[in-house]
């Protein structure tokens, strides 16, 4: 750790994307100096430009492995790809947020600033090479998400969502911190490289304190990705938070959590794989089962999508449990595919909803095809993709994740995955049936897909189909997602 302590340009390049995103957030806050009309109109533009600009340092570093700030952060293929996924999530979020927040009377510049803060925290989680950085970036993203969940502060459901998320999230952060403290006690250092070295030099004498710490860290991070048995917050928070925030959270927080989990467990605890793989196997299996089975009973589309996102977290955990390079590439591919299909589904939810978060029961989707064929067709694509049916991106994503698991001889997990995917077809298909085969309610309001929301819908639908038909390009890119060994 004897790098020069004076930060050079090279250090800043490692954290370039998150710095640019955070600077854009601060610019939005400074824009408050201008009259409200201007700052509100400028905020989404500043946010979008910031996210686009964050691609510049990503392309500059490419997949080269560089560490910065005395080993606190690292950039490698995995980090750059995750940051790209997060930047795209941010851009699509802005795409459907502008319409939504105007409709719900939540149009404030702080919304975009908080979204950008959350994204910078998420990007930093993908780059963290030290447990304190994992914790701090988790806190930035968590605080921003707690506030965003409660953004519709006049609605009790939103306040409830924010409070529940905050209380349970703080509890999970406490677990994470305790785990970090125990790992420090066991390894003598909190840098991921240092922990890996300490484990390697300990040899066969596995330090139980270190294992306990690893377990607690898994609990803290598992909460964020909604793994069972830490998923209890997900349905209530997803249902109560404003829909655009939920959409953003469901992809972004998961991507960040998985990035940190992958990096911590494959780098620091890589040598003790045999100790944590069975636990991860069990968590993945439980998550897939619980997410899919409980989703069947849901009648509100937001809750259904919440349980569906728990189930998808389970599929991604299968990739992580495989603990090989194929698993990591599959994880990145899955997150990219999931980003498009999930954000697309939520865009349709926003489109079909009415002011005051009304219109979120599945019954209100009756005959959506007759009200707006484009939206219904797009939703059909997303539902098929989420269920994992070809020729969509969702199918290819599950295929890659399951093949990685098979490479690691986890046949049981793949069987559970296949069975639960079958179960999921039921509740996804139900939405499609309701949209295409039923007549619309007589008092149903017309839905227009003009403007940015329509563009977002088109982009996500196109991407979902593209990834299903021509997954090769993204798959090759995902193969470059190597997690740098310290």
């Amino acid at each position: 750790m004897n790098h020069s302590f004076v930060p050079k340009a090279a250090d800043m390049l490692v954290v370039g994307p998150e710095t640019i995103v955070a600077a854009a957030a601060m610019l939005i806050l400074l824009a408050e100096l201008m009259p409200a009309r201007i700052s509100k109109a400028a905020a989404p533009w500043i946010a979008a430009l910031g996210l686009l600009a964050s691609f510049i340092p990503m392309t500059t570093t490419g997949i080269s492995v560089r560490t910065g700030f005395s080993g606190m952060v690292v950039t490698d293929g995995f980090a750059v790809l995750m940051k790209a996924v997060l930047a795209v999530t941010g851009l699509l979020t802005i795409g459907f947020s502008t319409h939504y927040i105007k409709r719900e009377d939540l149009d404030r510049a702080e919304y975009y600033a908080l979204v950008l803060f959350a994204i910078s925290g998420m990007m930093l989680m993908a780059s963290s090479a030290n447990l304190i950085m994992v914790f701090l970036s988790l806190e930035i993203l968590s605080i921003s998400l707690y506030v965003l969940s409660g953004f519709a502060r006049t609605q009790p459901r939103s306040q409830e969502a924010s409070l529940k998320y905050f209380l349970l999230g703080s509890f999970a952060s406490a677990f994470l911190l305790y785990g970090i403290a125990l790992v420090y006690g066991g390894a003598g250092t909190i840098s991921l490289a240092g922990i890996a070295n300490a484990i390697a030099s300990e040899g066969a004498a596995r330090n139980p304190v270190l294992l306990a710490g690893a377990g607690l860290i898994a609990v803290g991070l598992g909460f964020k990705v909604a793994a069972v048995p830490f998923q209890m917050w997900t349905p209530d928070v997803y249902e109560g938070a404003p829909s655009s925030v939920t959409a953003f959270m469901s992809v972004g927080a998961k991507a960040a959590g998985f990035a940190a989990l992958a990096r911590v467990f494959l780098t620091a605890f890589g040598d003790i794989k045999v100790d944590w793989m069975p636990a991860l196997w069990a968590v993945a299996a439980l998550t897939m089962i619980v997410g899919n089975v409980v989703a069947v009973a849901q009648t509100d589309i937001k809750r259904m999508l919440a349980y569906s996102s728990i189930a998808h977290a389970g599929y991604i955990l299968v990739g992580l449990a495989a603990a090989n390079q194929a698993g990591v590439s599959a994880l990145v591919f899955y997150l990219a595919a999931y980003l498009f299909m999930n954000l697309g589904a939520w865009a349709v939810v926003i489109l079909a909803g009415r002011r005051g978060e009304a219109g979120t029961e599945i019954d209100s989707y009756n005959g959506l095809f007759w009200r707006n064929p484009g939206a219904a067709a797009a939703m059909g694509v997303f539902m098929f993709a989420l269920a994992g049916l070809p020729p969509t991106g969702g199918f290819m994503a599950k295929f890659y994740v399951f093949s990685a698991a098979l490479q690691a001889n986890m046949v049981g997990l793949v069987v559970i995955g296949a069975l639960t995917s079958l179960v999921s077809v039921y509740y996804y298909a139900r939405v499609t049936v309701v949209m295409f085969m039923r007549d619309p309610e007589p008092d149903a309001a017309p839905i227009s897909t003009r403007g940015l929301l329509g563009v977002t819908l088109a982009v996500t639908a196109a991407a979902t189909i593209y990834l299903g038909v021509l997954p090769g390009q993204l798959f090759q890119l995902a193969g470059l997602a190597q997690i740098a060994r310290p």
Partner: protein
Amino acid sequence: MTGQGVAFAVLAAITIISALLVVTIKNIVRSALFLALSFVGVAGLYILLNAEFLAAVQVLIYVGAITVLMLFAIMLTQQIMSAKISQTTEWFWLALPMALAMLATLIFFFAMRTYPVNPAPDALAVGTTMPLAEALLKPYLLPFELASFILLAALVGAIVIAREEKPGATD
């Protein structure tokens, strides 16, 4: 039993008993005040670990600012100060054994190893504040700057959540 050992036992007892009282007392204001007492206990433990800067910061921030914030938040709530709030739910009899099991597991893990004792902790001639400051500004520079981002995000969050709507404001 050395003086340090006695001091540790007393401080640990204060901290743990106050913490237990926080989660069992039915009056919320007293619960918050016992939390302040447990913070003081932790500050004492920091002094035993030779981290005097952290002890001072703990008292300044936790006892001084955070307890005050919690009391303000309590006073903001209707009718909560005289209410008798039950601290347990119907899951208590499931949660208690699980928490005790986790405690037993952790203690078992800790007991499996022997820990080398630093032979002369009392001989620390210089305070730890200087090395802490050096560490914060050199190797741990990025977490230091990140802390200010967290504070900024919290600032924006506080305003978003708690800002008063002025009548007639279009903001």
